Every structure is written in C-alpha cells, then in structure tokens.
C-alpha cells in the first residue's frame, strides 16, 4: 500500500495560521498530508501535544509561529523554540528521527513559504517512511 504520511501541524493564530489561510485563498497548491490545528501561540504548544500526536500515529509534527520578535505575546515563540530544541534531543533518545519534528517561522504574508514548507516536509517524511511509534506501543511484544 502506498505510504501517505500524516503530518500534524500546530499553527499560531496570529501569523502562521493566517499565512496558511493566505496560501488557501491564493489558491496555492500544496500536499494534502498536513492536518492543521490552530493554537493561540506557538508558546501554547505543550510537549504533551507533540508526544500525543506521535503516539496516535502522526508521521511528522510541524510547529509554526511568528518570526522572532514578532510574537503577539512578546516571547511565546522563543519559549516554543527552547522547548522545541529540548524535545528534539528527547525524541532522538526515544528512537524517533529528529526530522519528524520541525519548527518554522511563518508570517501572515508568507502563504507561499507555508505551501513550500508543507511540500518539503512531506517529501522528507516520505523518505523516512512510516513512523513506528504507534505500532510499537500498540503491539508491545512480550
């Protein structure tokens, strides 16, 4: 069966979600593998959200926030950046390929960049193949 990756994307309300919206209203085409969840700020993305996404079968997780300095809440995106870096180290220890988790800054005017980001991440996940996390936990071999 052909592998169709599932990518869960957490987009901040103020920049990135608007950017994705722009990609849509501008009729740009991008890969349909992304499932967008709108959050008020990238700083709201709790590590639990990421782990749960992987646990429930996401092949990749994308977080998008405002560019540094542009956060609607001053420094939510910096907090996200710090958590993202530590999460990368953690998921690597858990045997999850670091590229399955990605953080990018997308402004409200960057619809094109968002479309390209989704395409490039989908390509990368296709190379990595399906995530084994859900299968491993569901079929804990005894």
């Amino acid at each position, binding site marked *: 069966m052909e592998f169709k990756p599932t990518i869960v994307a957490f987009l901040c309300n103020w920049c990135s979600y608007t950017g994705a919206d722009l990609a849509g209203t501008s009729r740009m085409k991008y890969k349909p593998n992304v499932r967008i969840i709108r959050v008020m700020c990238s700083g709201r993305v*709790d*590590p639990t959200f990421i782990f749960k996404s992987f646990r429930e079968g996401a092949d990749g997780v994308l977080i998008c926030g405002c560019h540094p300095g542009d956060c609607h809440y001053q420094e939510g995106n910096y907090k996200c950046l710090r*958590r993202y870096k530590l999460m990368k180290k953690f998921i690597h220890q*858990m045997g999850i390929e670091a590229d399955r988790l990605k953080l990018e800054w997308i402004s409200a005017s960057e619809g094109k960049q968002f479309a390209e980001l989704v395409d490039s991440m989908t390509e990368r996940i296709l190379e990595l193949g399906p995530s084994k996390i859900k299968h*491993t936990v569901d079929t804990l071999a005894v």
Partner: protein
Amino acid sequence: MKEESTKKPKLRLAVYWGAACGGCCVSVLDVHEKLLDVIAAADLVFWPIALDIKYKDVEVMPDKYIDITLFNGAIRNSENEHLAKLLRQKSKVLVAYGSCSHLGGIPGLANFTTKEAILKRVYEESESTVNPDKVRPVPQWDVKEGVLHIPVFYNDVRNLRQVVDVDYFLPGCPPQSERLLEVFSLIVSGAALPPKGTVVGASDKTQCDECKRKKTENKKVKRFYRPIEIKDDGETCFLEQGVICMGPATRAGCGVRCIVGNAPCRGCYGPSEAAPDPGAKMLSAIATMIDSNDPVEIDKVIDTIDDPAGIFYRFSLPSSILRRTIA
C-alpha cells in the same frame, strides 16, 4: 472469650513484590515498633520477604479473601503478571505501592532498551561472562524428574495499572512509612475510603510548595549543572542554581526529604493530579528557563542537560505517552 467475639475481625493484609529492589517491603518494616499495632489490627497472610507462604497457598484462598494487598514492583516477567492477576482476584483492595507499581519506577528504565539487548549483554558480552555456546535461559526445560519452568522475561516493563485494575496508588521510592501508617490507620478506623483510583499518602501540592529554599520568580539559567559539578549553597532553589530539580512537577508528601538532605528532587512521587504525561511538564518548564533567544546559544545550554529522557522520566517511563524507545 466474650471480649474476643465482640472484637472487630482482623484485617487480612498481603504485601507482594514484582520487579522491585525490596526497598518497598523494607519500608513496611520501617514503621518500626508500630508494626506491633499493625499486627494487632491485621493478619499478614502473604508477604514473601518475611513469611514463608507459598504461591499455592494464595491460589487456594477464596476470591476477595485478602482485605488489602500492597503490591510493589513493576511487571517485568510472567511471574509478576501472574501474581498481579492472582492478587487482584484474591483482594478486596489492591494498592499499587511505591513508584515501580505506580509509574514503572527504576525497572521501567529498561524500556530504553529491549529484551534482546539485555540478554545479549548479560549472557554474551559482559566482561565476566564465559559462554562460548551462547546459552540463554529458556522458560521450559525437560529433565528426567519432569519439566522445569522459569518465568518468561518480557520485552516491555509495565506498571501495575497497565496489567490489572488498581484501587489506590501510594507513591514513593519507597513510600514514606509515616504515610503508610496514616493510610493504614484510616482503613482500620473504618472511615469512608477515597474514590477508586485516588493517589493516597501524598499531597495535591508540589514539592516546591513545601520546599523551604529561597525562591524567586525569575528562574533563568545560562547552563545546567549536574549536582557533582557545582557547590550547592544550601539555601537557594536548586533550579535557580542551574541544578535540575523535579520539584515543580512532583507531588509533595515525602516531606521534601531529598531537598532537606541537599539533593535535588528526582521525582519519585510522580506528577501532580491530571498530568497526562509525567515528564512533559518538567521538560517544558526546564526548557523555558533557558536564558537565551538565540538558537545556537540555546543548543549550547541544552548540551549541558546530559540525559533529558532519563532525568524527566526517571521513575515513570512506562507511564509516559511514548512509553519506550522504538526498537
């Protein structure tokens, strides 16, 4: 005789260890002379560390014969699983006693590896092993007297709740004996028991709420230290000194014993109520403390955290969302 008949019937108490170090069983003995009060109120019907009562004696007990079972230790092999199921069947109240049965505990760290890797290391690679035929233990072996069995070693370590229905959780590595006595006295007094699934013998507050060290709101660090890398001043919050302390994401109830002893909290009491993942909150809090907005500098600070998975999930890996490394 007359007095005897009006007395309340004695409780039947069992203590069992799964994959455990024995510390939890010893913590029951740590009630010292109060053990006499326990014995006055309860008969110990099964306690392998102290009493010679066999599994087959438990198997012939009627269902729900035991009033309270304190089950400590994780589920590591088929013997642990069998006894967990057996004791569930024979007990009115099953308590997950200690970090291992509550969250997976230290044995749960084996979920960072696999059964194969463990057996290979132990039976082939370890420096003191001479095993040219690469003999491995087998669960069943025929000898002329009959068939010998040993438990099957599992690939994955689980906590008690992942195997059977659990009534209460009494956390700690090991639980504080004072908390055990409080819980036991409550049961003996006949007071109404808390709802099923409650964590007993611990507080809803965090370690930080009880910790007496000097704290400010401004927790910002340029690097993290392992406890051996820094001289603790004995009075400032460990986190503010850059030493990772699990206090903010750990239940109180132990009397902040480690911190009082000038060691940072390692998190054995587990997360506070309703945390879906035991380490995520701490990971989040620690990351936020990094005093930099520059990606390169942030990486350098994170380099000073040697083993995030082992630190944040030291006692709780099997209870975490990801549960184990991908084999």
